[in-house]
């Protein structure tokens, strides 16, 4: 793992059809050198099909896949030199840890001495040196996952592909391995492409996330940018939770507009350079529950709304409230618990407030 230089991958208008069913529809995406990209989407969104097309197990119906500018679409999987961590790991049950990790080197005809050195380095990288002679079934889930990683990295692959690498692990171990995977990525400096349906995993590990739904690429960008500025209702809803408020655009001007819904007018501020929607058009706002505050008596905010608590849940870190408002229907709000001695009761009247920058206009999803 010496010359740790990542490679760049590009997908150009890649489609995969099964009969009349489009599993992937004209997806174009660039993955930069050394980048950690996550393909995120619900099941059936086409994310795994894309990964399998990159790996060479699925032949795209149309489009091409390029590695550093060279077309690799027709290459069979064994010629691509991509490391892959499979869902459930796919460790060979009849081989020990060492034999599993040495497998890619063996099929490449490396001498025994070269093999041994590389295998040892790879096992050290994932801190499994002392388990070398065990069989996969004698290892815990987390250890198996690390063997799979070592096996995928030992032959200096051009890319590392991860298919739901953490889905088989329990919640606590998953959090630990997320950090480890991230650290590993920094250490080896290779390009990683990860597939998951777990939004937390995507947010915590990736340099960039590509969100897919029904075979289409919906939006991609850095985790923070995606979370803060979702462009569609689907993205806002899939990545975290959101309230959706709709209404008519009024008072449109550079830097903001107002959304009219019945008697209420909501102030919306836009970041620099984002064009406001035209007056009179319908618009949909996404408002994150944690961006809503409970206003004490006498305090004001850009937007204020009266309502009553319908139900609540205590989550340790805070409260999750459902609040019925006359103007906008039911609103969800999350409050940190430590800040005040807030004691919700059913029917408790509350005043909600939020900043004009908190709400983000999003597009309704195409049917």
């Amino acid at each position, binding site marked *: 793992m010496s010359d740790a230089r990542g490679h760049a991958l590009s997908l150009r208008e890649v489609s995969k059809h099964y009969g009349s069913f489009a599993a992937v529809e004209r997806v174009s995406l660039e993955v930069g050198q050394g980048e950690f990209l996550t393909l995120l989407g619900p099941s059936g969104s086409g994310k795994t099909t894309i990964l399998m097309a990159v790996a060479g*197990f*699925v*032949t795209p119906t149309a489009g091409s896949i390029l590695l550093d500018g060279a077309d690799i679409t027709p290459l*069979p999987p064994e010629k691509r030199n991509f490391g892959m961590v499979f869902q459930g790991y796919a460790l060979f049950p009849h081989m020990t840890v060492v034999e599993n990790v040495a497998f890619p080197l063996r099929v490449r005809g490396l001498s025994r001495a070269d093999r041994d050195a590389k295998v040892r380095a790879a096992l050290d990288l994932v801190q499994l040196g002392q388990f070398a002679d065990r069989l996969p079934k004698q290892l815990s889930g987390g250890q198996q996952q690390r063997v799979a990683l070592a096996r995928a990295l030992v032959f200096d692959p051009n890319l590392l592909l991860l298919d739901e690498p953490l889905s088989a692990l329990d919640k606590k171990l998953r959090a630990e391995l997320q950090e480890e995977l991230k650290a590993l990525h920094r250490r080896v400096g290779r390009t990683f492409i990860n597939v998951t349906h777990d939004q937390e995993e995507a947010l915590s590990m990736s340099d960039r996330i590509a969100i897919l739904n029904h075979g289409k690429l919906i939006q991609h960008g850095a985790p923070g940018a995606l979370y803060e500025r979702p462009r569609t209702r689907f993205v806002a809803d899939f990545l975290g939770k959101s309230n959706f408020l709709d209404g008519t655009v009024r008072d449109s001007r550079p830097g903001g507009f107002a959304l009219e819904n019945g008697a209420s007018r909501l102030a919306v501020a836009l970041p620099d350079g984002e064009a406001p929607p035209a007056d009179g058009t319908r618009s949909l706002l996404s408002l994150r529950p944690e961006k809503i505050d409970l206003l004490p008596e006498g305090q004001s905010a850009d937007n204020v709304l009266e309502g009553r608590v319908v139900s609540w849940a205590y989550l340790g870190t805070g409260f999750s409230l459902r609040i019925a408002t006359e103007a906008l229907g039911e609103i969800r709000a999350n409050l940190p618990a430590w800040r005040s001695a807030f004691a919700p009761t059913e029917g408790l009247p509350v005043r909600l407030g939020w900043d004009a920058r908190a709400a983000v206009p999003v597009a309704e999803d195409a049917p």
Partner: protein
Amino acid sequence: MDGTYRPGTVGRGLAWATAAYLVLPILIILPVALTDQRYLSLPEDGISFQHFRTVLTSPEWLGSIWQSFTIAVAATVLSVTAGTLCAIGCWRISRRATELIRVLMLLPLIIPSIVYAIGLYRYFGPLGLLDRFLGVVIAHGVTGIPYVVITVSTALATFDPRLEQAARGMGASLSQTLRWVILPRIAPGIFSGAIFAFIHSWDELVMVLFIASRDVFTLPRRIWDGINENLDPAMAAVAVLLILFTLLLLMADRALRRRSEG
């Protein structure tokens, strides 16, 4: 995942060749049975059903078919009764206690029938069972028990033992539980076992060669004599009838299993 892993040309070629080797020799009998010639050959000037007519009008062939059929039915009744009860008993009593019986049940499948046949030849003499309908029924019935035990045990493996306990808990006796709770659930398994036990008896030759001679002359025995003495197209006609009959039984089994699964 398409294109993930497919057998190579060598593997696929060998598989096709093997399938042909398994199936074609059996299929070739059909045109031979329909030959218009008087000797074993393919039809030359057209097909003819004369050899089927010969078989179906011959008192010898019909007598053997009838004898084989009645023996197989009687032997199947014996196998199914003993085998089903045994499988249920083994299922309900713990594994360890019935280990010996389970091993015993495998012996007829493992030990060559020639060994059993010469044993019976000697054993049936003093009992007066040689060349008797009853003797052949016992021999076939006893060796058919394992088939029934296996299919019924397979059916029982998916049967929740708590249902039996619930029935007993509500006051049902052992025989009521058997009749109303257990047997209806495992009927498809029993039927499969019955078909296999029937085919086992219907096709059995080695024992018959030793324990039957003149009065009991089953269909396999007559085919055996035919192959060794006069190879004529009537033999092919008999073979075709046998194949059709076996296929019919297997299709019945399949249909029944599908119905019970679906």
